[in-house]
């Protein structure tokens, strides 16, 4: 049987995220052909949901107001092949339909945090008891195969660990407290430190800038090699707290 495919978008905590999420979902539908094959799961708080959410989403899951509810939502995906996308992104190219080809033989696929893009990252290098390390995976987008038990387990662990690191019930010795708010840390920990995930096949999108182009990047220095941007990330430039109207 063919694997089901769909997008997961999470909007929690702030109403603006819900508005970003609606915009993202509608922008995916604008470009996805055939549109009736485009499946979208919206994970949001019940208080935010309105007709736009009900119209644009095939599946709706209610979450709580946790700052990193995205990880909870990712673990709840109803689709076999899932493309998670941060809500503050927008689709701007029809190649979005090709996202499923990026799965290849990986278990999960991310965009990369690289040295030449360092100039936009808030915190990337960090001290560990074994020396300096750095985040290499960006959780802004993530393509993963939920038919694989190890992936399902990973997604659940990523959420659990992030939840615990943020409420101070888990934190390894020798790591700065400033890292506690980053889900990239729990991601790094699971990929690099957890024995059970050592064989997990973690890939990077081909020409990953097309799949997660931070608008804060400078186009004169950093741009995709093979085609236009498919998903643009507005993260840094948005005022998430200020009401849009």
């Amino acid at each position, binding site marked *: 049987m063919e694997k089901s495919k769909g997008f997961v978008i999470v909007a929690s905590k702030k109403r603006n995220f819900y*508005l*970003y999420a*609606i*915009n993202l979902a*509608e*922008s995916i*539908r*604008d470009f996805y052909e055939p549109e009736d094959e485009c499946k979208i799961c919206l994970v949001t708080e019940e208080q935010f949901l309105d*007709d*736009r959410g009900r119209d644009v989403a095939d599946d709706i899951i209610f979450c709580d107001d946790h700052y990193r509810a995205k990880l909870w939502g990712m673990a709840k995906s109803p689709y076999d092949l899932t493309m998670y996308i941060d809500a503050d992104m*927008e689709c*701007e190219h029809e190649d979005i339909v090709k996202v499923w080809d990026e799965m290849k033989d990986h278990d999960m696929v991310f965009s990369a945090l690289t040295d030449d893009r360092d100039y936009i990252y808030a915190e990337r290098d960090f001290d560990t008891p074994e020396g300096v390390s750095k985040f290499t995976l960006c959780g802004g987008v993530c393509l993963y195969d939920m038919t694989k038990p190890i992936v399902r387990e990973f997604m659940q662990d990523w959420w659990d660990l992030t939840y615990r690191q943020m409420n101070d019930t888990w934190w390894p010795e020798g790591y700065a407290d400033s890292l506690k708010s980053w889900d990239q840390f729990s991601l790094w920990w699971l990929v690099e430190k957890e024995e059970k995930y050592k064989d997990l096949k973690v890939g990077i999108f081909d020409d990953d800038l097309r799949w997660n182009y931070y*608008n*804060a*990047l*400078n*186009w*004169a*220095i950093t741009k995709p090699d093979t085609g236009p941007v498919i998903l*643009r990330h*507005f993260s840094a*430039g*948005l*005022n998430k707290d200020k009401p*849009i*109207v």
Partner: protein
Amino acid sequence: MSRKQWMDNAFWETDEKKELNCILELEDDVGRVTHQQMFLRRHDKDGNPNELFNEVVDALGEERIDQETADRVERKKAEAEEDKIREEEHNKARKLEKLFNYKLEAFEVDEIKNSKNRKLKAKLRRAKSKIEVDMYSIMILQEELEAE
């Protein structure tokens, strides 16, 4: 053993070659290397030749300094051009963020929010300027008003 050497990136400050910018590299007895950037005039205020100036010119050769001066001008020009392009791209990105927020504001207008015309809404989302956003917003509003 100590060592003193004029670095080969010295350049003229003016076309008249009366002023020179250069770096002196010094190594002390224990191998510590330091650099001193120097600004030298060909003559002192009384019109006497500056020995240090002549020492640099003799050490590096006038042609070499000419070449470095020309190269530096080209390099600075290219850097300025690159900075300009980067600044332009930076401004474009800021403009895009503002446009993104502007579109979201438009989508919060009741008539646009509730419109089922996906084609026009998609055009609004793809708009490249505020004028284009306004234009599609008006088209959606008109359509909603006509439907009332």
